[in-house]
């Protein structure tokens, strides 16, 4: 049992356990804290995959800012009402199980169909090009960060800007919705 193997299985179990805890806790604060633990676990997996920059940014953005805001907002709610609203009947339980089954079926199907032995002749060239590129890529962490930056701001610039616009739309929309329902300031 090499350290890499042990680390992977430990982190995988941690992430899956925390993810399950997000769903199964009735208290929303515990759910949010478990989600934060999931984010930290994912950052740890990134480190084992030598993607140090992404791991650091995951910690800063997700675990350090997004989840803190989640927990802060949850602390302002009435927790008893939230716990009572958590549905745990038989019908809703069956619906949850069915949807989980559908989703995992989709994922497993996607993995099987993407494997090399399944892919047809036409895509063989694409696979070969991808393998050739993998060999060419340098492995030092600085080069990985630099490459990430170059690719992100040249080839994927449209997606990057579109994400920024999307986030702005979300923020503006939330404020607009909150104001239209009275908001925190009473209308004079």
């Amino acid at each position, binding site marked *: 049992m090499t350290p890499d193997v042990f680390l992977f299985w430990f982190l995988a179990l941690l992430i899956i356990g925390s993810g399950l805890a997000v769903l199964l806790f009735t208290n929303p604060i515990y759910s949010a804290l478990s989600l934060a633990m999931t984010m930290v676990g994912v950052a740890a997996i990134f480190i084992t995959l030598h993607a*140090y920059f992404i791991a*650091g940014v995951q910690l*800063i953005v997700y*675990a*350090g*800012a997004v989840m*803190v805001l989640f927990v802060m907002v949850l*602390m302002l709610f009435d927790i008893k009402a939230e716990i009572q609203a958590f549905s745990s009947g038989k019908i809703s339980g069956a619906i949850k199980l069915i949807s989980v089954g559908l989703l995992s079926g989709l994922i497993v199907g996607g993995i099987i169909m993407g494997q090399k032995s399944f892919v047809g002749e036409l895509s063989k060239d694409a696979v070969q090009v991808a393998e050739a590129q993998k060999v060419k890529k340098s492995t030092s962490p600085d080069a990985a960060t630099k490459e990430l930056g170059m690719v992100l701001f040249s080839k994927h610039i449209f997606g990057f800007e579109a994400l920024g616009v999307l986030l702005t739309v979300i923020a503006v929309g939330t404020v607009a919705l909150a104001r239209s329902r009275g908001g925190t300031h009473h209308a004079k």
Partner: protein
Amino acid sequence: MGQDVFEITVNCIKLVLIFLMMVQAVPILVWVERRGSAFIQNRFGPNRVGPLGLLQLLADAVKFLTKEDFAPDKAIRPLFYAAPIFALIPATLAFAAIPMSVPLEIGGYVFKIQGYDMNVGIVFILGVSSLAAYTILMAGWGSASKFSLLGALRASAQVISYELALGLSIVGIILLFGTFNLTEMINAQQGTLSFKAFGHTVTSAYIPNWGIFYQPLAAIIFFAATFAESNRLPFDLAEGEAEIVAGFHTEYGGFKMLMFFIGEYGHMMLGSALMIIFFFGGYGIPWVTVEDVRQWAAGLSESATTISVITTLVHFLSFMIKFVFFLWVFIWVRWTLPRFRYDQLMDLGWKTMLPWALGNTILTALVIYLIS
């Protein structure tokens, strides 16, 4: 970690030693704070227990250890007990990534004077120190008390607001030195001022090659943001006694409360260390490069081991002098400035520091692009 057992053992011992160093520096810091603040306020500090009151902290620690271990009636036990332990984790993890001196070369082994060397040093440190907000939230929620909750919400809002200004002020320095690695940043700040502009190399023999002369605005913003990150005055409304009793650690007593303060002083030490690494040349001596010191040490002794040890010790001393100076500035500012109001604090973080840090980043990027 190392190739053979000796190296692995030494590196493990080094990790433990750095953690202990951080924790043991806290009593000394508290003594300096109590005597220093007394000096500023024209009164005596503790001067009865031991010579100059140095054993006061030992007496305090014994007192805290023997206190009753209580929790409020409605407190949520796991969160309540986990929060003080969690207070130590971000500061310790981040402090172990700080290089404190030139690597020591003994008999074929190279030992770095830091817990671990991350190539993405500063990204890791920022990420881990941003987890400090969870301590506050867990303590505030787990105490099941209105004062704690209000204090926790205010303190965590402050922490995440100033994290932004902290990270953005550093981007200028990262652009300048072109690396995330802290050791490389220190190596780029050796000797006297010299940089390339429009093909010429501009040098000056009077100014050391420190980051503060390249990025003065970033230094000011960064230093102010570290005050907010470690909940020190003038940003300490989390513990403002007159306002919300004691904020998120109202319901804590005994050693659990001390752990929060160890975490706070740990963040102070981290901020001080980062300040000197980015803007004041780290462990380097001003105007003098590491090679010069090594040659001076070679003049003193013959064996390579002794030369390496002398160089490392000299640079460690240099680091410690700057480190202690900035810690003193933290303490000095605490007893000089009054506390900010919550809305003033939020305005400062979002409407003043963030735009200035952004402007600094844009200006730095423009200048670097134009002069190269």
